[in-house]
């Protein structure tokens, strides 16, 4: 307890930072609330993955594709990958782009919250939203008789790939938000999301891309989708995809650290 030498007026100075953990928690809560309050973000986070899940299962049945597993078992890991990608890349990039535009990052830049605290707060909010996505998508899939491989190896593998995928996409999302203007970030983040969702190996196995299958496996989207499928469909530990994601995260982090400006 420090003895105050102040006059005791209402506004008498008594500066100080809240404990770092409290600051990060406050930032996490705030960012998660704002993400969930935004209609477009919610569409991206929950509605689109659910539509893809139900639509995909119906399409596989209609086309009568011969698969080694049931449609829902085959598809669910990819939908989870899509959900992770939408939040950690598209939502994060757009939100951060507009935070820069509206001076939020500048304002927080003169608050006691250090930059790594802000980053941790953002990651915390991403993980909270992703947890919600996994619960909703997983719940819907279980309703459609999803029976994933359940072993320690498969669950740890899925978790590792999901976290690495989040790191990789988040670092690139921040890079885009730091390099482009807010409107350009909005456009680019949505475009990349659509391209990767359609042709980036998120939803369907890389081998279905024929002679492009190698390329697709090296994309962060392909690595995330393949990794989750290897873990949850085949029950193996996805070490290859994990390494690809580590590389993407390292490059993205380096680029962001070099280029990101707060204004």
């Amino acid at each position, binding site marked *: 307890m*420090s003895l105050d*030498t*102040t*006059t005791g*007026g*209402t*506004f*008498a*100075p*008594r*500066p*100080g*930072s*809240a*404990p770092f953990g*409290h*600051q990060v928690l*406050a*930032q996490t809560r*705030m960012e998660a609330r*704002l993400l969930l*309050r*935004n209609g477009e973000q919610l569409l991206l986070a929950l509605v689109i993955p659910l539509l893809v899940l139900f639509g995909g299962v119906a399409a596989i049945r209609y086309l009568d594709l011969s698969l080694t597993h049931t449609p829902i078992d085959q598809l669910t890991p990819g939908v989870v990958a899509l959900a992770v990608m939408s939040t950690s890349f598209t939502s994060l990039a757009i939100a951060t782009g*507009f*935070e820069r535009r*509206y*001076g*939020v990052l*500048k*304002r927080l*830049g*003169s*608050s*006691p*919250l*250090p930059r790594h605290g802000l980053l941790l707060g953002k990651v915390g909010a991403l993980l909270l939203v992703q947890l919600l996505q996994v619960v909703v998508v997983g719940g819907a899939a279980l309703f459609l008789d999803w029976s994933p491989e359940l072993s320690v190896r498969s669950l740890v593998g899925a978790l590792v790939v999901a976290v690495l995928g989040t790191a990789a996409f988040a670092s690139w999302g921040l890079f885009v938000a730091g390099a482009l203007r807010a409107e350009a970030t909005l456009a680019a983040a949505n475009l990349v999301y659509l391209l990767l969702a359609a042709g980036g190996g998120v939803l369907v196995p890389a081998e279905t891309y024929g002679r492009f299958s190698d390329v697709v496996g090296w994309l962060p989207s392909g690595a995330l989708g393949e990794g989750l499928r290897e873990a949850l469909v085949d029950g193996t530990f996805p070490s290859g995809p994990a390494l690809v994601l580590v590389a993407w995260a390292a490059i993205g982090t380096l680029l962001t650290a070099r280029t990101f400006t707060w*204004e």
Partner: protein
Amino acid sequence: MPRSSSSAASGTVPAVEIRGLRMAYGDKVAVDGLDLEVARGSITAVLGPNGAGKTTTLETCEGYRKAQQGTVRVLGLDPQADRRHLLPRIGVMLQSGGAWTGVRAEEMLRHIAALHAHPLPVPMLVDRLGLAECGRTPYRRLSGGQQQRLSLAMAVVGRPELLFVDEPTAGMDPQSRRDTWALLEELRGDGVTTVLTTHYMDEAERLADTVHIIDHGRMIASGSPFELTRGPGISTIKLVVTRPFPDHAPESLRRVLGPETEVSQVNAYSMLITGPADATTLGKVSAWCEEVDVLPESLSLGQRTLEDVFLELTGRGLAA
């Protein structure tokens, strides 16, 4: 241990100390060899037209920009190198923006409060700044004046020692301006140092203990509003009395005041005295009033405004 060391040193170090600051954006020089010192516990206004270099100077103090030449010390600290120790001790009000578009006014204030160790009670601040009626309104739907008041609230909620406010009342209605001024005066009363930029001369005159007038990145005049408007030792004193002056009053008063003083009668009840506006002169004037048996109703020092001062120094007006 920034807290304990700060309280030990707080009396000795100026709040802000700028020496030879030079800042340029490409070819354009924004700040050109500026020296400036801010005393603790004062309100200091940095006055100048748009583009004079006010915001650049402020943002260098706040650690947003690195001093290209010269030195800047804030509470004795380097705003860039000692940023983490400095930031909790200062409050910053940006000229615009600074909140998420979808965040509610009170929610935003609570968030900033949560980043500090001993924040002010949010409801008190909300009430003081008239934000109660818009506490649940998303930031993007607040009026310009409400956004400004929220921004000020965010700057003071952490109970800073030193407050930087950039154009605090731009776009505010008269009532909000008065509330803002009252708050800044109360902060000074409680020991908070404030540096504000403004291009409103009435704001500087009303609030500031010290005014620094800058133009094209250079300091062109400094002093209290009184010193600046008084001019170089000469001023006018207007004397108004309750009943008409006796005959030959100007001559009689001039004899009392001495040769360096001009006296002219405006009408039967008032006279204009031009000369050194000091206590001696004022004393002689009231003694003379007693002698000739008139009761002074008012005795006021002539009002040049800061606007006049700026016009004299630059040949241009202050207004944007």
